[in-house]
């Protein structure tokens, strides 16, 4: 019985903690951070910035993606890369104006 309770407790904890990414909103501005996740099919990235917040960014037609000053394709983005993102906050949505790959 104790084992069952333990399994149920661990299962519940798993359900509540592992089923999604927690994301934050910040003010408009420029932030540096690391790419946590890339979703190529949605042209979306998750960036963990210096204060520990994770930002969910959907690229728009206006987003400029560069590396060493040169425009690059979305496929150049990889998890773990350091990036500098310039964001515009619209409501609570964060539109990436520019994303610079730092390495």
């Amino acid at each position, binding site marked *: 019985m104790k084992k069952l309770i333990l399994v*149920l407790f661990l*299962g519940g904890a798993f359900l509540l903690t592992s089923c999604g*990414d927690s994301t934050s909103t910040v003010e408009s501005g420029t932030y540096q951070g690391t790419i946590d996740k890339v979703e190529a099919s949605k*042209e979306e990235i998750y960036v963990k910035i210096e204060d520990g917040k994770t930002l969910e960014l959907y690229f728009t037609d206006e987003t400029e993606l560069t590396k060493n000053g040169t425009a690059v394709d979305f496929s150049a983005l990889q998890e773990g890369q350091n990036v500098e993102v310039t964001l515009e906050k619209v*409501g*609570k949505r964060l539109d990436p104006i520019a994303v610079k790959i730092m390495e």
Partner: protein
Amino acid sequence: MEQLPDFWRTEIFHPLSVHFPIGILITAFLFKIISLKYKREVWIEGSFILLLLGTVGIWIAIYTGDLADGIVSRKLCDPTVLKDHENMAYICAWIFTSAIILESIARYNLVNLRIKSILLNWLSTILISCGVLVLGYVGHLGATLVYQQGAGTYQPSADCSEFVE
């Protein structure tokens, strides 16, 4: 002049697929509650089959929701509601999936457990009850996205010119 967009857009498949599991899983919950009092086969078998169908449906709804997410997120004023909707939907799906696993273990003796199947049955009832509550909240968040932020909807022009042939 504005042109009316095609109805069969990618984001349409989520509302088309999401209402089926909502109805089925709520009915499965009602069957389950009734089967606790009246041990007739129709309630016991009915709740299991509906739970199975609803759980498959909820994973299909998550898939179509994921397709819609990439399109509607760029137009929402508060995408954090969409993120909550998505996270809670996954929790909901796993709760019902866990209930199916417990029910299957109890029905088919899949694992040689010393605990009695009646206990597993009660545990699955608790999970289904929690699942229905979470399902209601997921539905509320989805409705908020549509009715407060217009997620996935087409906004007609002021003069409705696209409806004139």
